[in-house]
């Protein structure tokens, strides 16, 4: 479903990886590993179409993601190093705007429920500026609950989370994969990934 063909990426004048081939079927979780600076983030951003590779291409359902453009992005959810939430808006506002932009038809009740599920009951309408680092991250992760995207691309989603939140997130990923979704993630922490079919990719020499 997601194919990577002969991918080569450079950063500055350094080649991070080249000739990378991959093919992921629905119901797979890909765990990308590698040292700091080995190019994990670059690979994930390339998969999303945020970074243009120097050679090779990424295909979704057999078509190049460049050509698919918006049709691909509709099925994609990316979670990067930055949370992507506005600190002046409340959790509710952040999530409903994000859902509206993603084109997910989400009601205000769904948003409240998602926040409650992720463990933020009582903090829904505080500006996220007033939340702790981990709580901010939870607001951002509540998007996973609301999303109906087929492909999740998660860059170090476990950092700054406490044990309980890690377990919750793992559950979400497992459900997503079990339901025929695809997930690509990186993490430095040792987190047992207990979901269906797990593929591993090691970057760097």
């Amino acid at each position, binding site marked *: 479903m997601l194919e990577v063909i002969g991918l080569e990426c450079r950063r500055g004048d350094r080649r991070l990886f080249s000739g990378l081939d991959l093919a992921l079927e629905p119901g797979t979780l890909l765990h990308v590993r590698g040292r700091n600076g080995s190019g994990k983030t670059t690979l994930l951003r390339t998969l999303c179409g945020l970074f243009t590779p120097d050679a090779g291409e990424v295909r979704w359902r057999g078509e190049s993601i460049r050509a698919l453009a*918006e049709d691909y992005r509709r099925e994609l959810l990316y979670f990067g190093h930055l949370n992507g939430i*506005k600190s002046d808006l409340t959790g509710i506002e952040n999530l409903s705007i994000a859902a509206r932009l993603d084109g997910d038809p989400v009601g205000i009740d769904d948003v409240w429920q998602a926040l409650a599920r992720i463990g933020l009951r009582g903090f829904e309408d505080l500006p996220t500026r007033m939340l702790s680092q981990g709580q901010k991250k939870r607001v951002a992760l509540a998007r996973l609950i609301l999303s109906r995207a087929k492909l999740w691309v998660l860059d170090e989603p476990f950092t700054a989370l406490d044990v309980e939140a890690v377990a919750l997130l793992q559950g979400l990923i497992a459900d997503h994969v079990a339901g025929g979704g695809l997930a690509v993630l990186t993490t430095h922490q040792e987190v047992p990934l207990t979901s269906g079919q797990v593929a591993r990719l090691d970057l760097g020499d």
Partner: protein
Amino acid sequence: MWAVFWCVLKRDLLLAMRRRTDVLTTLFFFMIVVSLFPLGVGTERQVLQILGPGVVWVAALLASMLALERLFAADYEDGTLEQMLLTAQPLSLLVLAKVGAHWLLTGLPLVLIAPLVGMQYHLSDAQIGIMMLSLLLGTPILSLIGAIGAALTLGLRGGGILLSLLILPLYIPVLVYGSGAIEVSVIDLSDTMPYLSLLGAFLLAALTLAPLASAAALKISLE
């Protein structure tokens, strides 16, 4: 599709309401620059009348440019811009919405405060009217063109002054026709028509082309 446009527009207005000083700062900058000139040039009536249109427009140029520096910066720093690039909507539409909100917050206030400035420079009522009209047509162009520069210089060291180097030269046509309209309005109001319709044409061109260029620039800057 337009639902998304409104969503982004409302979001940016909401954010601005949560931080009102950012909006006021542009306005004050404009006022200060405009008020500096009489101090530097002298306060004779005739001189000021000649100067007025040009000074107002140059000040508008500078104010709009300085405010633009922050157009995408906040969204870039907290990662929401990245998320916007990944929505299932054409990026140029989102850019247009952001520029629209930006103009409502920084351009429109300049138009509204123009009469005050006109009085400082002893302009006639007709001139003030034309000034407001030309600003109304011209400032959106400034925001639209400036958005390209803002997108290109996103997250750079010394971005502010670099931005001005890049986009101030591109503002020249707006400046020429904007201040030209006010100047000829002294003689005959109907003379201003060609100027204003040219500004209108520029605005239409900028509305169609600038969002595309800004979107491309954003994609480059976010790689």
